[in-house]
């Protein structure tokens, strides 16, 4: 077993002596994550506020004075134009309005994400809605009908989630998602260098000459990959936590491109058991992916070829996680906890929300360990195949 430790040590020393690699894999994510998560949100927030406060010009045709007044009151500047639709399409105005046959037709360029035009359209809609309500209220008052007749009852939506579920928020999705991203990106650095890198540099043959079973070599390299993957995962999650703290300071939400605010959560207080369970899940995930990456890396002829295998692997690994977003739509089934990667993501989500059961945990860990074992055996078989080892 000493052979495993020696290979692990050698791989990690090689990695940690590469300052640039350590910086880009372990340091940079801590600072990049908050920027990545909240940078666009902050910029969007500022742009939306700016657009709300700015006085946009509105191309108008045939509007009555009361409507023009309503637009002016909503901080808009109506400008008469014979064809508002054409003016908006040509980009001369962010928004246009035509009054025709009892309809206010509002024109805006609404394709392609949130734009100033959409904000202006929203302002026009709100102004006209207020005008409509004022006119309705005026008619009702004239006829002696109380205004309350328009709201015979109210509808209230109450979030009945448990406190821990609420605290989990989006983290239940973000945590496994980013964990997989960082485990893969951090792990591949070692996996590629320890396999295709060794082949390319001419060091693999010397290592294979050592009187040590191939399983020890494969396990040593896989564990080095796991160590780096976990460190990278911790680094990414530190960034996520930093981002979460920043989010809490800025109101606890993430602004989406449609202008909706998503609750991030980030108030999770895990007990020791849940924390250990999360760590074990992350470790098994890293072990599984590490063995897969080592196998792929060894199969490649060169460093470049190995990297070209890693990009599709990353996409493939993220695919089941995307379905985690829809977990609220389906009834939980035990077999979901046997689906590679998806099971770990489901369990992490459940752990964060305090709803994980021993069966879910057992199935997830057992199956992931089995997948890791199979991947490791495959790595050993690849190591033993001379046509693979010498195909450079």
């Amino acid at each position, binding site marked *: 077993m000493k052979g495993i430790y*020696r290979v692990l040590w050698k791989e990690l*020393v090689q990695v940690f002596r590469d300052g640039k690699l350590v910086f880009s894999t372990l340091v940079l994510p801590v600072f990049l994550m908050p920027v990545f998560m909240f940078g666009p949100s902050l910029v969007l927030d500022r742009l939306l506020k700016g657009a709300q406060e700015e006085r946009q010009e509105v191309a108008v045709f045939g509007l009555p004075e009361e409507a023009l007044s309503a637009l002016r009151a909503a901080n808009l500047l109506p400008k008469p134009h014979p064809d508002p639709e054409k003016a908006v399409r040509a980009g001369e105005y962010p928004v246009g309005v035509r009054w025709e046959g009892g309809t206010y037709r509002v024109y805006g360029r609404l394709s392609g994400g949130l734009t100033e035009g959409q904000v202006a359209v929203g302002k026009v809609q709100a102004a006209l809605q207020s005008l409509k309500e004022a006119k309705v209220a005026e008619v009702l008052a004239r006829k002696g009908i109380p205004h309350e007749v328009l709201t015979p009852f109210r509808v209230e939506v109450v979030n009945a989630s448990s406190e821990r579920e609420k605290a989990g928020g989006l983290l239940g999705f973000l945590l496994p998602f980013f964990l997989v991203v960082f485990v893969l990106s951090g792990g591949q650095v070692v996996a590629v260098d320890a396999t295709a890198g060794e082949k390319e540099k*001419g060091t693999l*043959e010397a290592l294979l*000459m050592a*009187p040590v079973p191939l399983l020890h070599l494969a396990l040593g390299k896989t564990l080095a990959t796991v160590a780096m993957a976990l460190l990278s995962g911790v680094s990414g999650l530190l960034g996520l936590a930093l981002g979460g703290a920043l989010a809490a300071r800025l109101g606890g939400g993430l602004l989406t491109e449609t202008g909706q605010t998503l609750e991030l959560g980030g108030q999770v207080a895990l007990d020791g058991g849940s924390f250990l369970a999360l760590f074990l899940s992350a470790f098994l995930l890293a072990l599984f992916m590490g063995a897969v990456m080592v196998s792929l890396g060894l199969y490649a002829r060169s460093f470049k070829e190995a990297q070209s295998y890693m990009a599709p692997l990353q996409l493939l690994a993220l695919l089941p996680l995307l379905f985690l977003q829809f977990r609220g739509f389906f009834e939980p089934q035990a077999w979901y906890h046997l689906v590679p990667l998806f099971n770990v993501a489901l369990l992490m989500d459940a752990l964060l929300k305090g709803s994980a059961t021993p069966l879910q945990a057992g199935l997830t860990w057992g199956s992931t360990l089995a997948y890791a074992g199979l991947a490791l055996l495959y790595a050993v078989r690849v190591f033993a195949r001379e046509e693979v080892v010498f195909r450079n």
Partner: protein
Amino acid sequence: MIEVNHLSKAYGKRLAVADLSFQVAPGEVYALLGPNGAGKTTTLRILSTLVRPTGGNAKVAGFDVVREPLEVRRRLGLVNGGMRVYDRLTGREALAFFASFYGLEGQAFQEALNWVVELLQMEETLDRKVMEMSTGMRQKVVIARAILHRPPVLLLDEATAGLDVFARRALLEFVKAYRDLGHTLVYSTHAMSEAEEVADRVGFLHKGRLVYQGSLTEARSLGQGSLERAFVQVVKEAA
């Protein structure tokens, strides 16, 4: 010390090594000569347990290369021209890493290190990172890695490739010195002048077949004093 009997290796329909037989005794340098693609590297890879033969058998230090690979590796050193050591480790760390696989740790490693440093004159390389070494220094570390456990059998495959004149000279001197210690060496090369300098016996490989083997003196006399002439003559006759 090395026994090769009817050894073959096929890659699909192509025979890389065909019915190869030879023996090498302790205290002997056997030069395996042939152009690129003659089967020299495949033969040495079979002897070093990295490649499995498809026919015949081979023993190194009394152990079968297929059935007892770990025992063979414990008694064998391999140096080839393309071999490198880890560039971010120092010479000492790289050697300690490989030595540990042979149980050489602590005092045992230090003694092995002292021996190899003296033999190869490589004191200045020990505490330098491999990436900061010259080609010759690096090759010394590669050789040191292969002999640190004092293997009774050493295989060298185009070991002077890429070396400058000084490093090449040092390597040839080392081969003779290691032979004089009573060890068994196979020296594979396409450079006849190197074989003439170090070999006791030679074998000519052509398209995977051993077309001639004999002592260096016999081979030279076959080529009227020139090993190269003998090689060309034998290969032409075999073709």
